[in-house]
């Protein structure tokens, strides 16, 4: 028993010191795997006419600058005929904003939204997300928890829950929505620190990553 727990500790230490060395091939394979699981495609945001319209609208409404929406945010749409993940990068091709590892994280984050949409119903999810800032904050909290879980598991880093939560100001959420998000992220930290994986997309990602990198 003692030997086993020492082994587990050393595996965790190795993970902490050596996050998975992901390559472009790994990232493309990861996106292919996650997209196949959720029956969804990836569309380059800059190639999408509908996303350009949304960017223009958000910009004119003063919610989010056009460039920021198109270059710094990935967007998920769970409803046909525009169902898809609209990414501001090509999976597997890193750039100054999107490292290979951040592409793994954002894929998991967006796939968690797909799971939320399947569970709540695609139309109900979309309606709630658009019309209620409290619901939007709640859905984003679940997706940010994926970022927390992956960062702690593979990089040994605890992301700042307040920093994550207050990003929601850019999503039309109030300070109270952000505070609620921060609190529910913090409340799950003890479980995540003990290795629990709360979010379904994290479990899918970890299954794939651990097998790919022999960390199981």
């Amino acid at each position: 028993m003692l030997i086993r727990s020492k082994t587990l500790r050393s595996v965790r230490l190795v993970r902490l010191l050596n996050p998975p060395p992901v390559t472009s091939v790994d990232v493309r394979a990861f996106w292919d795997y996650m997209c196949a699981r959720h029956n969804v495609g990836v569309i380059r945001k800059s190639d999408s006419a509908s996303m350009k319209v949304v960017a223009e609208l958000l910009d004119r409404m003063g919610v989010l600058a056009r460039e920021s929406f198109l270059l710094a945010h990935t967007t998920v749409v769970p409803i046909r005929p525009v169902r898809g993940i609209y990414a501001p990068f090509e999976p597997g091709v890193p750039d100054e904003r999107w490292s290979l590892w951040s592409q793994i994280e954002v894929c998991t984050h967006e796939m968690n939204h797909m799971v939320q949409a399947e569970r709540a119903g695609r139309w109900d999810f979309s309606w709630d997300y658009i019309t209620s800032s409290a619901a939007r904050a709640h859905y984003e909290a679940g997706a940010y928890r994926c970022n927390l879980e992956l960062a702690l598991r593979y990089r040994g880093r605890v992301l700042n829950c307040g920093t994550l939560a207050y990003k929601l100001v850019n999503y039309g959420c109030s300070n109270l929505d952000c505070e609620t998000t921060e609190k529910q992220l913090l409340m799950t930290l003890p479980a995540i620190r003990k290795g629990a994986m709360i979010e379904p997309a994290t479990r899918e990602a970890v299954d794939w990553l651990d097998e790919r990198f022999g960390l199981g």
Partner: protein
Amino acid sequence: MRFLLLLLPLSLGCPMPDDCTPLDTRCLGGNAQICGSDQRWRTFVKCPTLGENWVCCWSEGIEEVPSGHSCFMPDQCEVPDADP
């Protein structure tokens, strides 16, 4: 009247609030819930899905973690059975 008819589908689409106090937490059926800014309870973690040792309960805050209900190991619980 037409205006009210237009509002009808909107009102049907908006669930009634639970009248909880935003930021409050509770356990319900093994789930940890938080009260949102719209005064509605929402589940943020289903403790039984984490494994058989996890329970939903109240715990005093430790370091950056505030006091409240969430999934903990039984020895971390201040009140073992916190379901209202």
